């Protein structure tokens, strides 16, 4: 027969990670302005839009610019868009402005957060040069977290490498 000798040693108590829901802390929905209202690429005029409205800005001015892969340079088409934006923003000074920087999905998450921030900063700096006061503008990066175009080819990714000028409501 085999006999079994056992001696129990207390092991260290371990505090299990309880599932925690942090209720009642956050109040905002998700902090993401809805900026996907139309692509506003060109500046072609569209009727039935109130001049000076956010819709006017999005549709007739173009609320976004696009970037080359892994670049934050403001290319020629983007310069034209930003010139239209600056002109419009300087005529409609009641709006606070948020510039969102975005990256496409073909990069790693943390680098893309910084790349989106770099694009937003470059856009803000360009608008500042065109006379839009820096004090009206804040920037935020969403990295690759908020694509507008969801597919898996180059045409899509190029739409996601963008900076969007969002009218943040009338400034006081």
């Amino acid at each position, binding site marked *: *027969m*085999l*006999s*079994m*000798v*056992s*001696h*129990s*040693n*207390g*092991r*260290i*108590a*371990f*505090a*299990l*990670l*309880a*599932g*925690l*829901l*942090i*209720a009642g*802390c*956050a109040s*905002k*929905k*998700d*902090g*993401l302005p809805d900026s*996907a209202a139309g692509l506003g690429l060109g500046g072609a005029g569209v009727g039935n839009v109130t001049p000076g409205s956010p819709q006017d800005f999005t549709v007739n001015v173009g609320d976004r610019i696009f970037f080359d892969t*892994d670049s*934050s340079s403001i290319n020629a088409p983007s310069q034209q868009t930003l010139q239209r934006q600056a002109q419009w923003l300087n005529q409609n000074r009641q709006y606070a402005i948020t510039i969102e920087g975005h990256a496409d*999905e*073909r*990069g*790693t*998450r*943390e*680098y893309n*957060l*910084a*790349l989106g*921030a*770099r694009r937003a*900063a*470059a856009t803000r*700096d360009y608008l500042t040069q065109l006379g839009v006061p820096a004090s009206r503008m804040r920037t*935020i*990066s969403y990295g690759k*977290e*908020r*694509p*507008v175009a*969801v*597919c*898996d080819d180059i045409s899509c990714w190029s739409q996601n490498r963008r900076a969007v000028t969002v009218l943040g409501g009338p400034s006081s």
Partner: protein
Amino acid sequence: MPTIVMRLCAAVLVLAGAVAAATPAAAVVELDITQGNVQPLPIAIADFQSNDGLGQKISDVVSADLKRSGLFAPIAKAAFIQKGLGPDVSPNFQDWTVINAQALVVGRVSPEADGRLRVEFRLWDTVAGQQMDGQQFYTNPDNWRRVGHIIADAIYERITGEKGYFDSRVVFVAESGDKANRVKRLAIMDQDGANVRYLTDGRDLVLTPRFSPNRQEITYMSFGNGEPRVYLLQLETGQREIVGNFPGMTFSPRFSPDGQKVIMSLQQNGNANIYAMDLRSRATTRLTATTAIDTSPSFSPDGTRIVFESDRGGRQQLYTMNGDGSNQQRISFGDGTYSTPVWSPRGDLIAFTKQTGGQFQIGVMRPDGSGERILTSGFHNEGPTWAPNGRVLMYFSDQKGAGGPQLHSIDLTGYNEQTIPTPGYASDPAWSPLLD
């Protein structure tokens, strides 16, 4: 919130009598896992005896852990000759060697008067006819899976000579909803995907969680109040706070090995630099000062060095520096870009994401940049994290199209790739140290 406290009492089972008194034969069951490609060891894992089926469930956990490691090949139970074997008797070793089992695991689960479970197991070397290990544990019945992981770790360590990694957890980001507006929640699970618990409710976009070394805290990035910042979450209380008072986006947080500091990136205009913040004194130290993007830092296990990525040379490459920011030097020089470096808990390797030829790869290199090896390559593999024993990596992998990411693991041989089951899409895994 309720805190579940678990006590595990381990005791070595000593076998006296005939077997132990016999002249010890040399143990023959050992697995050299320092070679590149390992032949899995055939092992028989008998259903643990119990009166309610729990014994089989626990031995199934043991079997699944060992199988997924790629180092063990559990033998189908239908092939067993000696049925119903428990831990009290010496096995008929011939019955096991004849089915090619080089090791045998038996066990028993029995309820104690105080409501706890007693779980015993023995590991036998069938060729030498010797016991290799025997232990018993007392635990709350809710923790039966954990006992299975602890037993699997004991078997792994006894046979390979290296620490196991099964009694560990993973914090990750659970994803749901459209790709264009993903809902992301922090979640924790066991390393095998069991026992998923959600830590946040999905209202805030959350990214890149990491465990503190004592596993009581998570640092992560959140868009909480509209401003993206690094947060600290106390797991036991649910309390959370913003780390530091920085004048811009903070992201990419990691703990120091002593748990006293969080290092992270601070974005200012177009530049991201790496800062360290002492969690007690709140003092911050700037570690890099470039006009580039310096991010994804990771301490060496001894805390003396930090590996990070930077595009200061034009594209993302890996660099190392001392813990105080001095002695910065580039270590990656291959084709493509390198990012998300993570220093192995053994100190011997750095794992990374590499982009080249339209593929996203997971690879490893030595801390001086030599010996680069790609372990897996695909459309989008990103963000490796080390198992506590430094032998397995977990990462997330996305496919083309409107689907979402899933978690995978791969071992250092590059041959053993596994999918980690999660309730939905999952990304940004971070492995905990071994529990204790």
